[in-house]
């Protein structure tokens, strides 16, 4: 049996497309998320808004807590490790997690190197705020990309900025003459073959989700219309007044992201959205971690 793990790992991300991946901290929340239509859950001890509030060093979650969530639901379970912390990633692989998020939400463990993700059998998703970051993570072995956004803020501005940046850089590569691609690879600091792939296909070679600051069905619809293939919702659900209803509304908004009439109905009576903080009110920009 021939088995190309990397291909299989990219393919799992393809199955998640058009879906919503929700942050959960307990098996009960995981069940609520699954019932609300999450296509996967991200198991973590504290959601980004609380990580931000608590300060200090933020690490991989307790494996026991992650396993509790894996037992509670039938959908794929993801978990975060620190940037560059390959030992945390090895632990997550040992408990057979479905996807590892090498995440800037946690405190980086290595300020130079990301994890060599090609050494692993389990898939990795990584954050990116521009095409160069996305392609560098892919060359390190990431099989899925998400925008970094600004986690735990409920502020969509950074996710929008990152998605628009990637789109515009992709369009620029597409329009280039082949001779210009070598220099583009140099400027972007990425391997030539990935630049060539983007030039020919008009997209990155893995699935690309939106993440960081999604709080409402309208936010989700905005990111989908900007070209995201699905959405991560972190603090936006369980920091809101009515998590079940909001989660379910965001799931439907992602499926019918261009039907404004439906999204208008979905946006009614959702209770209080997470309060949120503006990007200029925060001192820590997580998106600046790990380039």
């Amino acid at each position, binding site marked *: 049996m021939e088995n190309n793990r990397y291909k299989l790992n990219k*393919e799992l991300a393809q199955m998640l497309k*058009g*879906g919503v991946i929700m942050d959960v901290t307990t098996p009960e929340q995981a069940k609520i998320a699954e019932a609300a239509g*999450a296509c996967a859950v991200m198991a973590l001890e504290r959601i980004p808004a609380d990580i931000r509030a608590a300060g200090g060093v933020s690490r991989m979650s307790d494996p026991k807590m992650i396993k509790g969530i894996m037992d509670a639901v039938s959908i794929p379970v993801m978990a975060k490790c620190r940037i560059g912390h390959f030992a945390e990633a090895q632990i997550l692989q040992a408990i057979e997690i479905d996807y590892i998020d090498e995440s800037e939400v946690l405190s980086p463990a290595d300020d130079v190197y990301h994890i060599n993700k090609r050494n692993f059998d*389990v898939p990795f998703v990584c954050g990116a705020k521009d095409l160069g970051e996305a392609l560098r993570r892919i060359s390190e072995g990431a099989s899925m990309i998400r925008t970094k956004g600004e986690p735990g803020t409920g502020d969509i501005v950074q996710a929008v900025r990152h998605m628009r940046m990637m789109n515009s850089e992709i369009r620029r590569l597409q329009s280039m003459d082949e001779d210009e691609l070598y220099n583009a690879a140099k400027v972007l600091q990425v391997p030539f073959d990935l630049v060539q792939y983007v030039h020919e296909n008009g997209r990155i070679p893995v699935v690309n989700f939106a993440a960081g600051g999604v709080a409402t069905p309208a936010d989700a619809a905005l990111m989908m219309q900007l070209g995201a293939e699905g959405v991560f919702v972190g603090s936006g659900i369980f920091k809101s007044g009515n998590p079940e209803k909001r989660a379910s509304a965001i*799931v*439907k908004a992602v499926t019918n992201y261009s039907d404004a009439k439906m999204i208008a109905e979905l946006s009614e009576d959702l209770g209080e959205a997470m309060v949120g903080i503006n990007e200029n009110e925060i001192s820590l920009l997580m998106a600046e971690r790990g380039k």
Partner: protein
Amino acid sequence: MVIGVLALQGDFAEHKQKLAECGAECFEIRQLKDLERKFDGLILPGGESTVIGKLLREIDLFEPLKKKITDGLPVLATCAGMILLAKNIENDNTVHFGTMDITVKRNAFGRQLGSFHTSSEMKYIGEVPMTFIRAPYITECSGAEILAETDGKIVASKQGNQIALAFHPELDECIKIYEYFLSLCSDD
């Protein structure tokens, strides 16, 4: 010939790509008004069956699609799609369309580390590549015909015009399964 592709969640775009390679026209089904268009076959894609099953009901597509399937509309269902068609799900109390007399087990090959690629002989079609992603398999096939097995597990079956596959032909280059499915759609 026009094929409707259920596009609530999952890898429906890959199916559309394959249909285009076969020269078939297709469109996405995302809400009730999409069913106003006439179509000759239906694809239920891979994805998460919990999500697709829930959205089918909430977006009011469930009953009209179920009626079309029981009326004989040809269906090609892959992975999550197969779970939607099964009459019984071994490790889940939910039944979705339940239009095929098969019992399936979800995530039967394990978590993502258990995902694999292989190839196997398929009845009516011949040798085909098979990609299994957190895949289910069929544990009981009472009223349906077995089309393929791998490692002693039933991974493809057919009942009337319904074809259920535990794997993802939309992820491999071979289009033989689509050609066979399209031949069922043009019979009517």
